[in-house]
């Protein structure tokens, strides 16, 4: 961890969803309520101007964490602190709105994230109007500026979203996220729907903007290679729990948790011709009935009795550069 005061902190963040059937069906089938723990005591800090990345497969809870951090969903337990302040504890609507202005989000789908009936000019200008950042007469000028900033032409503002390619739409989404002059942006799989050559354009644009505007990112992805390119610090999620948090170099040079190692090994490499990845047995278990002890134990090659019974605590390694939740990790 760097010495900066974190802009964003997650404090034992938890999200539990009620996935029970409707009351009557439950009574007839004599079932009890069922709960899904999507996020389980997650802790991390994001220093100002840095990128923290969450990586995980389906069911890891990475998107739920993103939604809780931007305030789209209330955590079941724990807190999200923005500059030391708990967003969900703010009662005053004006202050809440002021806080919203500082945090924005870029979504995964470049198709569903833009209202198809609105002109691009209106889409990008909406946050400016909603937060009343400037007089209405100046909004168009600011929109043109934003379009230019993300590499689009001013005339593109008159068009509708369907007239753009996936990459261009994602640029529009970025422009909208920037419209309220935020300090922090949650990027939820922003390039997973894009082609490689376009993905690199968008990633580079996001890096440039971060440098120019001093933005802080929470970057959510399932793709380790993209994360390696974007992140300063990385958290690896498995079934709602952070199993390893480490800075980028530490994680890629010395992955400590067996799951992190598996993820790295299973990811296809463009220079590993004819390689057969070491096969991990099994798939991600049902998040409603998680395995006991360490959730990864049924798929881990190192499993001992302790892993089946006892949930591993988070321990620090390498002077706090890496935090790992594994009984067997030694260095």
């Amino acid at each position: 961890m760097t010495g900066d005061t974190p802009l964003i902190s997650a404090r034992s963040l938890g999200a539990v969803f009620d996935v029970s059937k409707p009351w009557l069906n439950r009574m007839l089938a004599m079932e009890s309520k069922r709960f899904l723990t999507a996020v389980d005591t997650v802790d991390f800090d994001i220093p100002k101007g840095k990128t923290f990345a969450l990586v995980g497969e389906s069911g890891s809870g990475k998107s739920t964490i993103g939604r809780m951090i931007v305030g789209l969903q209330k955590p079941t337990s724990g807190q999200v602190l923005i500059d030391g302040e708990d967003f969900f504890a703010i009662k005053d609507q004006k202050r809440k709105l002021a806080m919203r202005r500082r945090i924005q989000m870029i979504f995964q789908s470049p198709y569903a994230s833009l209202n198809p009936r609105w002109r691009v000019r209106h889409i990008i200008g909406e946050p400016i109007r909603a937060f009343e950042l400037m007089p209405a007469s100046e909004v168009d000028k600011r929109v043109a500026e934003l379009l230019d900033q993300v590499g689009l032409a001013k005339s593109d503002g008159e068009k509708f979203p369907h007239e753009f390619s996936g990459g261009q739409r994602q640029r529009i989404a970025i422009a909208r996220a920037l419209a309220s002059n935020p300090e922090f942006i949650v990027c939820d799989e922003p390039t997973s729907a894009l082609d490689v050559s376009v993905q690199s354009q968008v990633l580079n644009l996001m890096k440039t903007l971060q440098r120019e505007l001093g933005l802080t990112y929470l970057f959510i992805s399932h793709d380790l290679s993209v994360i390696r390119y974007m992140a300063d610090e990385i958290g690896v999620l498995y079934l709602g729990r952070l199993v390893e948090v480490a800075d980028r170099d530490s994680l890629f040079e010395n992955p400590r948790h067996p799951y992190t190692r598996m993820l790295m090994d299973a990811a296809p490499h463009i220079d590993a011709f004819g390689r057969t990845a070491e096969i991990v047995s099994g798939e991600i278990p049902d998040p409603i009935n998680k395995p006991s002890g360490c959730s990864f134990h049924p798929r881990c090659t190192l499993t001992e009795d302790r892993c089946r019974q006892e949930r591993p605590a988070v321990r620090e390694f390498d002077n706090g550069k890496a935090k790992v939740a594994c009984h067997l990790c030694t260095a």
Partner: protein
Amino acid sequence: MSDTPLLKVSDLIVEFPTRNGVLRPVDRVGFEVRAGEILGLVGESGAGKSMCGSAIIGLIDRPGRISGGEIHLDGERIDNLPEERMRRIRGKKIAMVFQDPLTSLNPLMTVGQQLIQTIRTHLPLSQNDARAKAIALLEEVGIPAAATRIDAYPHQFSGGMRQRVVISLALAAEPELIIADEPTTALDVSVQAQIMALLKRLCRERGTAVILITHDMGVIAETTDRVAVLYAGRIAEIGPTRNVLSAPSHPYTVGLMASTPSTTGSLQTLSQIPGSMPNLRAIPKGCAFNQRCTKAISACFNDIPVLEPVNGSEVACWLYDPAYKQIEKEISGASE
């Protein structure tokens, strides 16, 4: 591997008439696949890779049609067969695996019923023998406790297991060629590795040829023997995978490789190809890549390049034309 190709596609053209003119999602594509070989078709969305697969198996949506070229399977021409003949070839000789396993499985039938039905359509087996074969197939694709799982419905399987079932269904009639269209795109990385390993093993053990359609360069590198890089419906570069990926010749392949982030190697700025793939309605004159190419010369804007042998691969690029060799040297000299 025998010398005569199992599948030979030559100058394939697929056209879609629309009221604003005729679109060509596949434009003079040619390649060969040998028994036991895995050929990769790689490209970004709109490159025409899926359309190539659909053309081979004879499943192009109307009003699209094959308007030129020939497809030969085992020496037999199959692109102009009547629908009834083609239906028999489909499944028996060529099978298809799609991205979403649920589209290929009937949710109302057990996995066993679907497998037995497919087996008995193509092979003269009794109900019991077909069931035994179905269980053997499920075991072969790595489904644990196949003898009991055979009576489960598709929704009772996980995503990865479902894709295994689809592969076993594709294998049921012992086809000579499997076309796998983004078979792992919907799966998690750990499961993707399992499915890819399975495809490779089947290909090796059964001598089945596979056409693997994907956008993922990593999957191509690890799985395929040869690869064809498609751009705007045309092949930009085709050759042995190692050759094409580690020493790409076409500027598009070069750009594609350089813009693919990796978990290893240097961490410098990702290079990027400006712009995006042209819309099918507006493919530029000459080389389709000319608008995005930093090395484009005048010929690129006038004539469509054809595949010529370069460094052990075949490349469609004017920069490798003998007449422009000199210019190419100057350009590469200046950019380095």
